């Protein structure tokens, strides 16, 4: 199992897309440094908003789903397409174990990458700045480090839930990438932002639910969503429990599928 875990990480680092996703992850840093260079004096509210928009809107809502889509689709699919899955499925491992070990390795790797991006985003925003001198953002005391910890805490859950959904889609759909894009657009971009109850079925909303609980004033970023934020906070809906449920259900279904479905691409030419 350890051999497969290490191998999955090693092979992921050999793919071009991991460097592409890493570049995407540090893109918000550029977007943070640029205004700091252009206008060194900022207001407390502006700086606070800018930081949380970069983290929430860019990293958690856009880049994270995109990287999970790319790597989730390839988790089993890339080896099935190359034919190398045959080596993994004809050894002393159950099919579901192969999936789970690869999944765990990918969650670890992507979590480290996102945490790294969050750290450099934090450094790029707050390094060399005496935030206290800027005043109180939205009337609250500055808590940048505890806010960073909240983001770091939610990251593994966010990675695992997105990744598990995209792995499941790759096992169900005949055109996984197309199906994943459709899922991301319809569920995570459209339904997640509807001010009606259906948004609770999106991962985006659940991540937002966790961070809103931990970071005071974060809901001010989503003025138009205040009603729905209040709704799930009051009803105690969503959050880590919901993300955990998404991960669990997706993984159970994925394990069931890999254990019962043929995964290798078989050449059929005798008609």
């Amino acid at each position, binding site marked *: 199992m350890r051999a497969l875990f290490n*191998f999955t990480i090693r092979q992921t680092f050999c793919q071009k897309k991991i460097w592409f996703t890493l570049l995407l992850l540090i893109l918000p840093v550029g977007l943070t440094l640029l205004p700091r260079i252009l206008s060194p004096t900022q207001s407390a509210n502006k700086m606070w908003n800018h930081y949380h928009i970069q983290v929430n809107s860019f990293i958690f809502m856009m880049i994270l789903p995109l990287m999970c889509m790319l790597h989730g689709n390839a988790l089993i699919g890339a080896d099935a397409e190359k*034919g190398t899955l045959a*080596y993994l499925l*004809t050894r*002393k*491992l159950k099919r579901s174990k192969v999936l789970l070990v690869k999944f765990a390795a990918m969650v670890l790797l992507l979590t480290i990458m996102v945490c790294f991006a969050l750290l450099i985003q934090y450094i790029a925003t707050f390094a060399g700045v005496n935030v206290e001198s800027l005043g109180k953002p939205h009337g609250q005391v500055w808590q940048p480090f505890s806010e960073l910890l909240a983001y770091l805490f939610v990251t593994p859950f966010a990675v695992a839930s997105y990744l598990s959904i995209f792995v499941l889609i790759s096992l169900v759909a005949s055109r996984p990438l197309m199906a994943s894009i459709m899922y991301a657009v319809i569920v995570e971009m459209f339904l997640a932002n509807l001010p009606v109850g259906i948004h609770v079925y999106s991962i985006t909303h659940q991540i937002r639910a966790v961070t809103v609980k931990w970071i005071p004033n974060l809901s001010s970023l989503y003025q138009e969503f205040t009603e729905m934020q209040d709704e799930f906070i009051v009803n105690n809906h969503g959050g880590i429990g919901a993300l955990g449920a998404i991960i669990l259900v997706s993984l159970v279904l994925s394990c069931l599928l890999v254990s019962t479905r043929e995964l290798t691409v*078989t050449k059929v030419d005798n008609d």
Partner: protein
Amino acid sequence: MSIIKLDAISKWYGEVLGLNNLTVTIGHGITALVGPNGAGKSTLMGLIMGQIKPSKGAIQVLSQPPWNNPHVLSQIGYCPEGDPFWMNITGRYFVRFLAGLSGMNRRAANLAADEAIERTDMTRDMNRPIGTYSKGMRQRIKIAQALVHKPKLLVLDEPFTGADPVARSELATLFRGLADQVDILVSSHVLHEVEGMTQQILMIARGRLVATGDLRSLRRQMHHRPHIIRVRLDHPRNLASALSSLDAVSGLRVPSPDTLLVETTQPDMVYDRIHNLLIAGNMNVREIAPADENLEAVFGYLTDRNGASADSSAN
């Protein structure tokens, strides 16, 4: 005692039939699975390796169904067809990694990998990335990974593909050497590749088992096959009318204005007769050659014959 047992196995891929009601038992030693491209060999290999499921029927490998069965799969060494590789890793890492997946600890995996690599004569190149290997080297490193966990059964899907004649001969020698310790099922679309390795042959074509047994009995079955002789000359109908009285000739066709196809079960006699007629008749002959000596034609004959006998027994 059988190591592989297939009972009325059928496999459909949508509308396409991959295997058709195949019942066969494979015993110890080296067994060759021979058939033309698209015969269903890889489907059969996939079923044996638990990679695909039968649409109908039952399969047992080492007395257990292979699908999602690590206990059985850990006793089989599999060498898949084609070039399925992680090209960036070295041959040694590849074999060592798969040894690790077979349940060995790091030290045992290293030792087993080095031993398997040495057996396949890849020690000198083991630290190079697989992407830089020749076709023959890739075949050998695939065989090394199949041997690394000391399996009871080796399943080799088209292991000779891409190897040059020298490499083929070396591989055949390697397999013969391994046969003392491990049972081997090897597939090929070229009969003579496996002739020197084993006498146990399974011939499949169009998803059906068309012949089974030792090479001698297969040759005997093929001996009764009607041969087709192609004669290219200026006036084929003249020669056709001269041959029509011969009992040994079972059919005559003129597919083009300069070609005559003669069907016979006694080709030697017909060749003699044609020569005599040509000399006596002063005909302008450009070619006399067998038209169906390739393996596809042999498979075609055996398939049609078995199909006809199956149909007649069904009636």
